[in-house]
């Protein structure tokens, strides 16, 4: 059957919709790529490995399901970096004792998100923005306390805090070499 002109135009636009929509948007990652089942390797949250001077809070435990670090007073860049690529899901007021300022929640995959506490001067980023691994997201006051939490969802239940150690990159683990495993995770 012969198609009218407007019908040909309509079908052509149907095809162009898929092509056009596929290329539209300011996204640098497909949301469905972000929601994969992967558990990304987490890099250091500080731009300089020496910026973490000592471990303050005690081991990761059920009572304190996060790590807390002292940061160096001087000699190191006071930038906080995204441990892995992801989307900023939340910015709020930090509720970890000593880690004053804000916290940032990053969704890294369909299974993992991280929170960084004690954040100051969030660098022009907003909730909903996508960041790359290693991208500077904020700063900390030199000598301040910074907290780090990893939350993992097994796909059945909601996310629960887990000890970050097994998810860290080799370099990040090596930067914590002065601590024993029992000092870091319980």
């Amino acid at each position: 059957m012969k198609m009218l002109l407007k019908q040909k135009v309509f079908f052509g636009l149907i095809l162009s919709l898929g092509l056009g929509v596929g290329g539209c948007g300011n996204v640098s990652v497909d949301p469905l790529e972000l929601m994969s089942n992967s558990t990304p390797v987490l890099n250091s949250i500080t731009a300089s490995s020496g910026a973490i001077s000592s471990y303050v809070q005690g081991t990761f435990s059920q009572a304190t399901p996060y790590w807390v670090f002292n940061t160096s007073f001087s000699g190191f860049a006071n930038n906080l970096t995204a441990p892995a690529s992801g989307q900023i899901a939340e910015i709020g007021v930090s509720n970890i004792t000593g880690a004053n300022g804000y916290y940032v929640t990053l969704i890294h995959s369909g299974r993992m998100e991280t929170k960084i506490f004690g954040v100051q001067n969030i660098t022009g980023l907003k909730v909903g923005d996508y960041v790359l691994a290693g991208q500077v997201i904020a700063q900390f006051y030199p000598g301040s306390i910074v907290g780090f939490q990893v939350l993992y969802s097994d796909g059945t239940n909601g996310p629960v805090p887990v000890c970050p150690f097994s998810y860290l990159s080799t370099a990040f683990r090596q930067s914590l070499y002065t601590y024993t495993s029992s000092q870091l995770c319980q």
Partner: protein
Amino acid sequence: MKKLQRLALLVWALPIGLFVTPSAHAFESVEVTGQYPVALGDKAQNFNSNFGVGAALYFDRLLDPSVPNYVSIGYNSFALKVNSDAAFRVFPIVIGADFEGKVFSDLKTVFGAAVGGAIGYIAVPNATTYNMSGYFVGQIKPGLEYDASDDFSITARMPLTILAGKASMSYLTYQIGVKMKL
């Protein structure tokens, strides 16, 4: 890129406008639906379902007089298990055809097949930016339609929607609707 999105919407307004302009028998009927999507595949465990809605316009039969054609738009949402405040939202727009078969006097089976596109993004509370991504959409839509009166039908369908872009996802939707003749 927001300008490109606006341009795409404008471009899409043109053909929709062509069919909306007053014309005898331009549209046969309109359907409004309530939807409950369930994610399938390897990503299914990462999502909880939220209720959604949809609408379809049935119009002049393009290729075969006995086969109704439709354009439909939907809104589906999946809460993220990793962050319950966030959700993956998708708006599929498809054009397709409905193949009908009679069960008995007022009840018939319907099988729709459609293709189109979709926009999806992850929505988080208080977000001021939205990283939207586009997908090709393929959809089959089997179901039942009951003619409650000459002008009014009730539909129950289970569309299977496949989103294909840089990544892909498929989901099955439980859909109940009301269809009214124009």
